[in-house]
């Protein structure tokens, strides 16, 4: 057990960490979240391909099973076409007689790691880049590898959560802080504005705002427009929380002491008051990232968000919009599993963080 003196002198962050560690599920989910972010950063290396290469020979090719034997190591069976004798329809089958060896650190499509390191090695993939392709999670309507696309999509889907939340953070802290510190008429005005924004259903408002983005904008511009649109509507919850916290600590002695010391208003707000609830803000931020990810997925799914060639999980799910496509190629729903795992992990992680955020509660 921890000695009592240790607890007495531990810093606030140390206490938060101790509290958080006790929450097993949250701890595991924290590691999962971290792993997903690492995938997002190193996606080009981790993915077997760029996910952009089309191949008309392998339209809707089903997922291959990864197999292992001592002679070849890891391998997959290549596809062979089978014709139904009655309907004459073509379907894919595994050619059990041949093997496509799969190796680690293989040469493949060139890419730029972290955006500036040119490289062509991939963590895993078919050993012969010119040979038959590998589709571990199947192919889409134009023969692109779904596994590569999901891994590549992680970058956009995860970063949009961070960037979107960052903007909401600035708006939420400034407006919530002003509202909570000054109180009175300023407070009433800001709260009214928040109430009005909150009463408009967010998804339709996002849809309407984003529909105004000109079609001529580049992918990157659309990406930033989407984050701005999401955070313009999403800052209200955080602002309310910050306001409540400012209200709560406004009467504390250390704030009075700072005022008596002649500290300026901004200094009191951001140097003295804000650090006392930084952990709360981080916790509620970590809980709002998954909702931004879900928002992007939903908007891209209905075709009002990001669009190909940019890859995000929502863009991938857009191809599964049609129930006919889903019934021919059920694996098109797999990007949805990525979304669910990410959101679940981040929600558990955020909940654990929120419970641990106030170490002086007890």
């Amino acid at each position, binding site marked *: 057990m921890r000695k009592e003196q240790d607890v007495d002198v531990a810093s606030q962050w140390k206490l938060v960490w101790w509290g958080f560690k006790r929450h097993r599920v949250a701890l595991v989910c924290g590691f999962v979240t971290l792993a997903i972010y690492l995938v997002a950063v190193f996606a080009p290396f981790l993915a077997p391909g760029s996910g952009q290469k089309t191949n008309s020979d392998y339209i809707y090719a089903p997922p291959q099973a990864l197999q292992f034997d001592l002679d070849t190591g890891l391998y997959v069976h290549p596809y062979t076409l089978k014709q139904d004798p009655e309907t004459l329809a073509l379907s894919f089958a595994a050619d059990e007689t041949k093997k496509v060896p799969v190796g680690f650190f293989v040469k493949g499509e060139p890419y730029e790691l972290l955006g500036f390191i040119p490289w062509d090695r991939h963590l895993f993939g078919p050993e012969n880049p010119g040979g038959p392709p590998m589709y571990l999670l199947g192919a889409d309507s134009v023969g692109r590898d779904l596994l590569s696309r999901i891994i590549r999509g992680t970058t956009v889907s995860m970063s949009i959560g961070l960037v979107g939340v960052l903007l909401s953070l600035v708006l939420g802290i400034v407006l919530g802080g002003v509202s909570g510190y000054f109180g009175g008429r300023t407070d009433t005005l800001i709260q009214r504005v928040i109430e009005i924004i909150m009463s408009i259903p967010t998804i339709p408002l996002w849809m309407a705002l984003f529909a105004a983005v000109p079609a001529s904008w580049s992918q990157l511009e659309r990406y930033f427009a989407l984050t701005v649109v999401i955070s313009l509507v999403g800052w209200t919850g955080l602002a309310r929380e910050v306001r409540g916290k400012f209200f709560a600590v406004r009467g504390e002695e250390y704030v009075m002491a700072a005022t008596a010391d002649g500290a300026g208003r901004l200094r009191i707000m951001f140097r003295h008051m804000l650090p006392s609830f930084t952990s709360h803000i981080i916790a509620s931020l970590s809980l709002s990232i998954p909702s931004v990810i879900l928002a992007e997925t939903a908007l891209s799914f209905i075709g009002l968000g990001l669009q190909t060639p940019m890859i995000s999980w929502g863009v991938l799910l857009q191809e599964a919009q049609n*129930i006919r496509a889903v019934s021919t190629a059920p694996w098109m729903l797999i990007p949805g599993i990525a979304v669910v795992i990410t959101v679940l992990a981040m929600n558990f992680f955020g909940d654990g963080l929120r419970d641990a955020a106030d170490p002086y509660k007890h």
Partner: protein
Amino acid sequence: MLRYIGRRILILIPTLAAISVITFVVIQLPPGDYLTTLTAQRAAQGDSMPTGELARLTERYALDEPVIVQYWQWISNILLHGDFGESFDYARPVSALLAERLPLTIALSVSTLIFIWVVSFPIGVYSAIRQYSLGDYGFTFLGYLGLAVPNFLIALLLMWIGLQFFDLNAGGILSPEYRDAPWSPAKVGDLLAHLWVPIVIWGTAGTAGNIRVLRANLLDELRKPYVVAARARGMPERTMTITYPVRVAMNPFFSTIGWILPGLIAADAITSKVLNLQTTGPLMLRALLAQDMYLAGAILLISAVLVVIGTLVSDIALGWLDPRVRLRY
């Protein structure tokens, strides 16, 4: 109580005015004005705009006047004549389109709300009373899952399972053979057989959220001294739980309408295309993609107004349930 309702309604007026301004801004957002888009659209189809038509539309939306006047023209037409403008995509008045679609949207939203209440109430109470039991863990996990799975994914999954394993088309609100048939018991049965699909899909997130809130609130209440006091007086546990803590913990059932309703409207916008429902959601999506802004704006405005009215009703219900709330005003 009357004073409380009066104050709530008074607060409503500036909110509604602000919502109408935001909607008008959204209508104005797409580059180029309404007439240019319309003329371009017509030209693309190969026919030109009659000059009289152009003048009529300019007059109708006051397009040659300042923006303030345009806004006034737009909102006064809505308030005085119920005229939301014209959809150039459908070439029909927006109000006629809304009249076709809105009833189903409202009916589905209300049914979903009832579904959310009916399902989340017993589960929430059970989870709180049997905290950390196997059932509690199961429901908590299901709740997290319900919040994490996008509703369109559930929709796709249900449709796929229906098609794959039961050879059943779960989309739409009626089977094809009943679509034009007169109302009969069989048609009502068919309607009910289809209706549960959107209700379950729309309601999942709201149910999960409600269970969480109710469980947390009831847990707080169960630890309060009045519960101990009631137990000490020998009150049977079941009667005690239902008469005191559950009643207090019920508050979120009314106060959360404010965020469940927007969620339902969002679910409508996103899933109805998959589910092939004739509600306002797909109408808005199509209008936005075609930049048919008077139609899209009208749906946005009506959704927001419905949410505001829903919140008002929930506030009044809350005031009736909890005297502390109505005394604050």
